[in-house]
């Protein structure tokens, strides 16, 4: 959609007061050698002399059919059309939108209008987030969610006003919504300018910079912990210990793994103020998945706490979780290795025997991280020496999410074409951004694509050469069906 002589356009979104103007003024000041034009909304207040600043009313050209995917920004076509009319070309355009603006029509303007396509290229959508206030908007504001979803770069601004824990929590949540964006933290929009300019967010050739590892995969389990255990038969307990025991433990959570979810089980015993805190961590609405009296558990031996060894055990567990479950009643025995145990609980409790032939480290995976899990060896509770929460496939509390797909193998070109056409026709309104690199049978080159709603650009890029032929793609959107997308994509493989 662009050529080398096209003028880069950077779109700054974010709520009023998030810090867009601060960032804009910084860009204008630090890029003073360049001729930039700013298109700001009617409330804009850019105050840098000798710069071309044009106010716009964000006029939307909405089509008769009511399809948001067909809407473009009339004011941009008009203003950019006028800005083109210069003997000497501009070095760049910055568009500042109001907090209520939908970035979709802005991006679509540069896809659909032939003149805009020829003269400009959208370089990136930069969303500035006021970390202190975003949690108030994020849940009930489709605008805020969209601005996060559309972003190539997300700046968590004013980080000095929130605690490190809240910030981590927010970043995690935002990353779940948009896993393809670069997330930067800033206090006064003080991010390096090369992180917000020339990001190539819509550049097809740079769609290949999509790092599959960055698209944090999701797992069929929510929690895993490593326990060093001797050989023999031990007791595995699900649910709370008896009440006295719990009081003995006091605030310190040692009844099992002490991750966030487990704390929740104690909330009836906490002060009100602490309960309030939980409102911010995003887990308030978490519920047990499926039958509340079943818990899926896999126990995998793991050689060491080395990252590689844990990853090997984790991947083995992913496979095991897709296997048939082996139902385990209260008092029955479970074993380590490739078996999916479905523990049958009574009122959220259960006692099981864990039989281990060898001493060593064991990685225990829980399908639902809400359930306190204890392992007792000769009456003593063993604490996990390593533990981690995983993004569970069904744990989104936000309507907006990212679905990353990474599959090796070649695609059938026709099936792929049919699939994407059908998908965009049916789900285009809910898909905000998509990009990917695909391996199509019969072509020695990589197929790269990127798009906004129903519009997309695709082309055969460079040769795969020796690189492993694999497919990496990401969808960012609303109410995305991860399993459905993944399954239907896999069906396009040869």
């Amino acid at each position, binding site marked *: 959609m662009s050529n080398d002589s096209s003028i880069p356009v950077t779109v700054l979104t974010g709520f009023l007061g998030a810090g867009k103007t601060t960032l804009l003024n910084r860009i204008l000041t630090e890029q003073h050698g360049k001729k930039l034009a700013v298109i700001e909304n009617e409330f804009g207040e850019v105050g840098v002399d000798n710069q071309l600043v044009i106010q716009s009313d964000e006029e939307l050209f909405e089509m008769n059919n009511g399809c948001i995917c067909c809407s473009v920004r009339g004011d941009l076509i*008009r203003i950019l059309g006028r800005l083109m009319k*210069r003997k000497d070309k501009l070095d760049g355009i910055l568009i500042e939108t109001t907090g209520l603006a939908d970035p979709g029509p802005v991006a679509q303007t540069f896809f659909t209008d032939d003149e805009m396509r020829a003269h400009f290229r959208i370089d990136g959508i930069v969303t500035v987030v006021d970390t202190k206030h975003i949690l108030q908007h994020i849940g009930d504001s489709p605008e805020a969610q969209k601005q996060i979803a559309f972003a190539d770069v997300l700046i968590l601004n004013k980080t000095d006003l929130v605690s490190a824990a809240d910030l981590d929590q927010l970043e995690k949540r935002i990353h779940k919504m948009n896993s393809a964006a670069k997330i930067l933290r800033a206090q006064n929009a003080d991010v390096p300018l090369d992180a917000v300019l020339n990001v190539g967010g819509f550049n097809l050739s740079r769609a290949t910079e999509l790092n599959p590892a960055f698209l944090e995969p999701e797992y069929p389990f929510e929690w895993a912990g490593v326990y060093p255990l001797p050989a023999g038969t031990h007791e595995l307990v699900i649910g709370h210990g008896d009440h006295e025991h719990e009081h003995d433990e006091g605030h310190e959570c040692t009844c099992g793994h002490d991750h966030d979810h487990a704390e929740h089980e104690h909330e009836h015993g906490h002060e009100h103020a602490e309960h309030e805190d939980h409102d911010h961590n995003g887990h308030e609405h978490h519920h047990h998945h499926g039958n509340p009296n079943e818990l899926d558990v896999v126990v995998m031996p793991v050689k060491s706490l080395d990252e590689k060894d844990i990853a090997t055990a984790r991947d083995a567990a992913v496979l095991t979780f897709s296997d048939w479950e082996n139902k385990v009643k209260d008092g029955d025995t479970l074993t380590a290795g490739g078996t999916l145990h479905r523990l049958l609980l009574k009122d959220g409790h259960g006692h099981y025997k864990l039989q281990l032939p060898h001493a060593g480290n064991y990685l225990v995976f829980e399908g639902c991280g809400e359930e306190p899990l204890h392992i007792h060896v000769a009456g003593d509770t063993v604490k996990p020496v390593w533990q981690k929460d995983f993004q569970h496939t069904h744990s989104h509390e936000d309507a907006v999410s990212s679905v990353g797909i990474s599959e090796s193998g070649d695609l059938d070109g026709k099936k792929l074409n049919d699939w994407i056409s059908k998908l965009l026709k049916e789900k285009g309104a809910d898909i905000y951004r998509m990009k990917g690199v695909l391996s199509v049978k019969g072509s020695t080159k990589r197929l790269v694509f990127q798009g906004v709603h129903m519009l997309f650009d695709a082309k055969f890029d460079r040769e795969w050469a020796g690189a492993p032929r694999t497919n990496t793609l990401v969808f960012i959107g609303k109410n995305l069906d991860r399993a459905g997308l993944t399954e239907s994509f896999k069906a396009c493989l040869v």
Partner: protein
Amino acid sequence: MNLTKHWAGTLDDYVIDLAWSPDGTQLAAASAAGPVTVFKSTDGAKLHELPGHDNGTNCLAWKPSAGATLATGGQDGKVKLWDTIAGQHTGTAELGSAWVEHLDWRPDGSILAASAGRDLVFLNADGSLRHRFKPAPKTLSAIAWQPKGGCLAAAYFGGVCLWDADDFIAQKEFVYGNGIHALVWSPDSKWLVSGNQDPSVHLWVPETDMELNMSGYEGKVKELSYDFTSRWLATGGGKDACIWDCSGNGPEGRDPAMLPHDTKICAVAFQHSHSLLASASQDGVLMLWSPERKQPLRATVKMPSAATKICWSPNDDQLAIGSEKGAVYVLKCED
């Protein structure tokens, strides 16, 4: 047919608008940066350099029929009137903060219509306000007086309104569900045509409320021109100048003539009272056509940069061309 260079001049920036004075003795050219130059048409001498508008000039229009009154509109939200004999600024109308993007004189010279943002005004010939209309639903994107002078067509995203010249009421309102970039009337006032974002051209016969939509363009249509007989409508919107036959019930069901360029068309202009069409494309090529002939191409010239606007002199013997790099060329057209 020969196209020969008569003279050339230069502006400090992109030639954003260009027009011959009604008597053909002067050529006014506005630079996108602001200044407006008045050239003497016989030799290209610069008669006046008018300051134009702060932040840039957008458009200019000569008062028809008599005298030497030039109106200009700019990014300062003003309409300015100039006496081009004396080189004097004679009046200003301040429309607001929005850019003045469109100007059009009623053919009898009695009213100057100007639009800025969603606002439309009728000004008297001295620049005083005659009428301010209620704001349009969206930014006004084109205005055009009916050649008979009875009404002004004003387009915005969503439609076109015909405003009565005398009592300022809406005679008609035509709905069109897309962006409109240009308007033109056929010289006989029968057809009103819009060039659209979707991309298409839409034709109305306001008298009978008949309408037609001609689609199939590569890109949005911003270039429109009617020939003096009102039969042929030339349009841009792609690499071909596309000519529709508007005789009888109009172009529906008829194949247009396609006059090919190598790159996208950026301007089309029929002569005022003869049948030649000039078309220009992004690569700087300008071609002359006789669309009714079997071999329609009559002449080709190439300029160093793309044309922004082409205008025939009132007697049709000279063609003025403004360019992206600020050059103004005047070519003589001889058989």
